[in-house]
């Protein structure tokens, strides 16, 4: 029956000839594991294709939903973690395996006549894979992807004469936005994969036409192996190792949540995908007008070298130990790329246009206006200076008393530098940098500090005493300290947008250290005094009040979101510090608030991106498939040995 069906099909389409063309192949010198790299590349491409299509079922290519929709897949869809993890790590595996495949072909001299075109098609496929890596990284529209695309398109902009044209065409406009995402999306899911499939077919046809090149030693070439099943068996074993490795990476090293793209956030240091890091690092050697050498020159030369390799190295010698110019040159270039990649990975600074966040301060020589002094005094309290510094008897004792700044000979410039970055004067200073202050606010603050009549209120002595008592008693920070504060009643009692955004705890820490550390202390454990409040100290965030804590990350985030958005006024006669309404006052963007929330959750042992619907727990899934493969392997091993004995 099956034979009849098979014949019926073959009378209509030549299926069995196609199969024979793909499978029946003599391999000079027999099958080898090192030949499996080509099939492994194809396998990873298939994994990318399948997981990519699955991601499309959930992904929305719009700048306001891309990040949320991807996280919905990762957190709320069964096995979404696996689908995204495989796609994410598959992208990395693709570049690694393709590179190894190319390196093997290079060492074996397999690009030589008559296989030049196979090599060139392969180089084009490699470039297309890099294109997939570049466009794909932007699609989550998170900080990582957004900034990588920003820098990448800027690099296109350095192209001589056509730079700006190229940049705008790639971006779909003069700045990054929805049209950029649309372009990257269509390129990533339709245009480039389509071209890749076409070139894979051509690459395979060209490969089959001339077959495997085999070992370079003539003596080893007389034994033949069969592609099916000898080589395919080895390919399958390698494929399983790759599959297991990808699942292991998805399980134990899931892609990070880098927070939604925030074009306004200058505190994020952009870095490209790892496979472009060598270029990023190379750019640092070409400052200013020479930059174009790094951005356009080096990549063009590398691509030309790859494409022209079969025509440069034309002689018939394939033994790598006898190709004394080409092989060492190639290996030196490869080593250079690897070294630059590692250096790029370890470096922290950005290239070219340095975006230092410290604002340039213009110094006004005129006298301080009384209004500035008044506003400065308010700032001194509201941004938390008073938590650590006393002035005229009021305030904390962590930092030095600031009552006599004029007598100490402090100038306006010195104070502004100190406030923006205290480490500029004393590298061991623990004072957090208040780099978020505007120029006008800095001027107001300095006006207050340099005016001798900056008297505190009448009840100063009393408050200081209370502060002292509290810090002396070393009060245990009970979790209900913050229950004394009530949420500012003038604001709506609802959580903001940030609560539903999956922020980045890592970046949240950076923002926390900038904006929150002054009052809440390092890692949120500080017991910064808050004179005039009932609790006597600023609420501790680590561990956080039981009232706000919740094991469900979404509810937990919502609870603290209310406070961060709308602020809170501690109970007490006249609390020196109060929680600012960071959201309502737009002191922080919703993205930034979501990052800070993720960080505060992480301080309390809750992962913001906790998987709600895993389908199967990642670790159990990995254990299961690892044991299935181990079990099957064992069965076959036993069967193999039994057969041998017969």
């Amino acid at each position: 029956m099956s034979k009849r069906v098979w014949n019926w099909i073959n009378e209509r389409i030549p299926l069995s000839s196609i199969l024979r063309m793909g499978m029946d192949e003599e391999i000079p010198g027999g099958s080898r594991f090192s030949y499996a790299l080509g099939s492994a590349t194809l396998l990873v491409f298939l994994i990318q294709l399948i997981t990519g299509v699955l991601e499309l079922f959930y992904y929305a290519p719009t700048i306001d939903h891309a990040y949320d929709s991807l996280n919905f897949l990762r957190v709320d869809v069964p096995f979404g973690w696996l689908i995204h993890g495989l796609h994410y790590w598959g992208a990395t595996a693709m570049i690694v395996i393709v590179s190894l495949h190319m390196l093997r072909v290079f060492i074996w001299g397999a690009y030589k006549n008559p296989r030049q075109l196979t090599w060139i098609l392969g180089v084009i496929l490699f470039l297309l894979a890099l294109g997939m890596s570049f466009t794909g990284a932007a699609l989550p529209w998170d900080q990582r992807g957004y900034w990588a695309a920003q820098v990448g398109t800027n690099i296109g902009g350095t192209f001589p004469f056509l730079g700006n044209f190229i940049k705008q065409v790639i971006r779909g406009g003069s700045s990054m936005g929805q049209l950029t995402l649309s372009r990257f999306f269509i390129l990533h899911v339709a245009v480039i994969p389509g071209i890749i499939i076409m070139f894979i077919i051509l690459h395979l046809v060209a490969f089959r036409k001339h077959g495997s090149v085999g070992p370079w030693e003539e003596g080893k070439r007389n034994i033949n192996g069969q592609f099916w099943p000898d080589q395919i068996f080895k390919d399958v074993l390698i494929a399983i190792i790759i599959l297991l490795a990808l699942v292991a990476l998805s399980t134990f090293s899931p892609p990070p949540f880098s927070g939604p793209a925030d074009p306004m956030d200058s505190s994020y240091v952009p870095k490209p995908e790892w496979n472009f890091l060598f270029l990023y690092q190379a750019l640092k050697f070409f400052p200013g007008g020479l930059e174009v050498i790094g951005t356009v020159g080096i990549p063009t030369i590398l691509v030309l070298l790859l494409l022209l390799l079969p025509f440069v190295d034309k002689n018939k010698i394939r033994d790598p130990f006898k190709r004394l110019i080409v092989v060492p040159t190639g290996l030196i270039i490869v080593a250079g790329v690897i070294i630059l990649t590692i250096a790029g990975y370890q470096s922290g600074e950005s290239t070219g246009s340095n975006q230092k966040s410290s604002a340039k301060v213009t110094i006004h020589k005129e006298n301080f206006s009384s209004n500035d002094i008044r506003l400065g005094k308010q700032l001194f309290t509201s941004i938390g200076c008073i938590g650590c510094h006393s002035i005229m008897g009021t305030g904390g004792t962590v930092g030095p008393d600031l009552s006599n700044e004029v007598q100490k000979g402090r100038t306006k410039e010195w104070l502004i530098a100190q406030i923006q970055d205290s480490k500029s004067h004393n590298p061991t200073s623990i004072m957090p940098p208040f780099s978020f202050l505007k120029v006008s606010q800095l001027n107001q603050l300095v006006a207050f500090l340099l005016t001798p009549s900056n008297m505190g209120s009448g009840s100063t002595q009393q408050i200081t005493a209370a502060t002292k008592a509290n810090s002396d008693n070393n009060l245990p920070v009970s979790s209900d300290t913050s229950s004394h504060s009530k949420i500012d009643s003038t604001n709506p009692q609802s959580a903001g947008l940030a609560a539903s955004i999956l922020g980045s705890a890592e970046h949240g820490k950076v923002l926390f250290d900038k904006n929150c550390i002054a009052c809440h202390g390092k890692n949120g454990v500080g017991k910064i005094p808050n004179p005039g409040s009932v609790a006597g100290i600023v609420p501790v965030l680590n561990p956080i009040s039981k009232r706000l804590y919740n094991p469900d990350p979404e509810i937990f985030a919502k609870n603290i979101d209310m406070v961060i958005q709308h602020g809170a006024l501690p109970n007490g006669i006249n609390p020196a510090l109060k929680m600012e309404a960071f959201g309502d006052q737009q002191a922080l963007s919703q993205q930034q608030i979501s990052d800070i929330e993720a960080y505060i959750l992480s301080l309390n042992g809750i992962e913001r991106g906790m998987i709600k619907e895993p389908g199967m727990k990642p670790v159990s899934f990995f254990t299961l498939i690892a044991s299935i493969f181990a079990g099957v392997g064992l069965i076959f091993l036993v069967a193999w040995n039994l057969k041998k004995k017969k």
Partner: protein
Amino acid sequence: MKEEGGLKGSSQFSRRGFLKIFSVSLAAISGLILGIPALDALISPALKSKLTSFSKAGKIASIPEGSPARLTVASSSKDAYLNDTEMHNVWAIKKSDSDIEVFSPICPHLGCSYNWNPQNNQFECPCHGSVFNENGKVVSGPAPRGLDTLPTKIEDGELYVEWEKYQLGVNKKIKI
């Protein structure tokens, strides 16, 4: 491993046959390992029933006893990754601190918003003249059933209401 292919007819055949079986079955197992999660990811979210949740309607103490009070409920609905918050007015009748009935503001006849008329002590729908008493029972007019009560719960002195919608124009309360 490399050169055992040899030229011995039958043993070579069986070795190759063995490799064929091994390769095919490993490939099939790998396919299943990826295929089952893929199907699960596509199918099970589609079969999940939508979760509804309670939203805060206000402090029990601030709801007046006796006559119906109009409360605002922010019902947040979640459609996959889209979060939407809708504000709804509901009618609450507090008999005691533990006994509060909440009516959906939608007239069960054709979906108009009705109002409380304190003079006549009754709910009146302006569209087609349906009238309900303060317990939600139909007094007169075309309404096929009484006012729809919404699920409520009381926690820490706060009233929570679950926003739901019901089929209109039928005499039974059927959730949609």
